[in-house]
């Protein structure tokens, strides 16, 4: 139930329930409340759960995992005689 899906903010508007956005999930567009991510900008990726954005995806942090993998691969290569 705690599933949250990343989507891209395509359009921002004021709705019946306040600060809203059209968010695209790989082409499927849904209305999402931005009430909890007031600093979100057009084009940002947000994690969405039950119609609410709960965080803005940190793209720099997202890229770090690939660096971590390369580091581990390099360590493995060093260990192999």
């Amino acid at each position, binding site marked *: *139930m*705690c599933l949250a899906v990343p989507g891209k903010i395509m359009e921002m508007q004021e709705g019946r329930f306040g600060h809203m956005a059209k968010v695209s999930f790989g082409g499927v567009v849904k209305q999402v*409340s931005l009430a909890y991510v007031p600093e979100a900008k057009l084009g940002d990726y947000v994690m969405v759960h*039950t119609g609410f954005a709960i965080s803005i995806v940190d793209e720099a942090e*997202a890229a770090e995992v690939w660096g971590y993998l390369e580091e581990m691969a390099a360590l493995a290569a060093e*260990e192999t005689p």
Partner: protein
Amino acid sequence: MRFVTEYRDAAACRKLAEAIARLVTRPWTLMEVCGGQTHSIIKFGLDQLLPEQVTLVHGPGCPVCVTPLEMIEKSLELAARPDVTFCSFGDMLRVPGKSQDLLAVKAGGGDVRIVYSPLDAVAVAQEEPEREVVFFAVGFETTAPGNAMAVYQAKEMGLTNFSMLVSHVLVPPAVEALLSSPDCRVQGFLAAGHVCTVMGYGEYEPLAAKYGVPIVVTGFEPVDILQGVHACLKQLEEGRAEVENAYARSVRHEGNLPAQELIREVFEVVPRKWRGLGEIPRSGLSLREPYAALDAEKRFGLTETEIPEPEACLSGLVLQGLKRPPECPAFGQECTPEHPLGATMVSSEGACAAYYRYRHVGGEAPV
């Protein structure tokens, strides 16, 4: 899909699995807390990529699974009322009560509607003022901000026909209940990434220190989970027990502060009964006094009656990580997703349903 597809990359998973294999020198038991993680692990066969010494046990992080039978009965009682439009997330509809489920109430003429967001239920209340609209607010901290906003908006709008049946639970007290049990064999935890997105992970620091277990905030895709497992095992092998964030693209140490603020405005912390675990102090959320008029239990004068669990169902032990689903004699026999005995077979995030779907002969093949 960006931030999804790349975290399912098979080559990256293999690299992580190899790194884990190089790291491990002795047996370790880890628990993934969240049912969404359990589902990913079984679906993608991640447990089978790990060295034999590493055991993953599945935690209680499935809100559908831990909602007590008494609360299910209350939902059925409300949904059957002719004046009530009962709104719920879809996964609650097939949870069996004493004699039926919400789907059966709907088939019998009850006005039961599946909603995607709690705000959809508020919109129904606004559009159909002659109906008593009740929303079934089940969930962990991840779901609490949305549900808090629905209650807050309904009150602001002055809606008098909207209420909530609240069965909210909190993760850290359940983790502590498991850790303090003498039966606990878990040596490290993967904490639930989206719960921590909302609440941050400061609450876990005293737990890691007190019980000497590493707790790693972990995401949900295969690469995320293997990264969490790697970080947790690395701590165990090095004799450390710290809280670490392996899901930094979504989780910040302090969590989402505006969301926490509204949760505190609307909800207060109360003791709550968990299916399979019993009552845990300070482990649930309930509406605060200023929102009492929106509390469905008070509004409809619902009473509490204790309901025993079906004897053949071992879901309580499964939820504590003490039994694996295939060890239950009823698994795949009298208990199947079509005819579930317990909630762990109902919810797609329940451990029993995940094993049935992906591991049981005749179940769906792994993707």
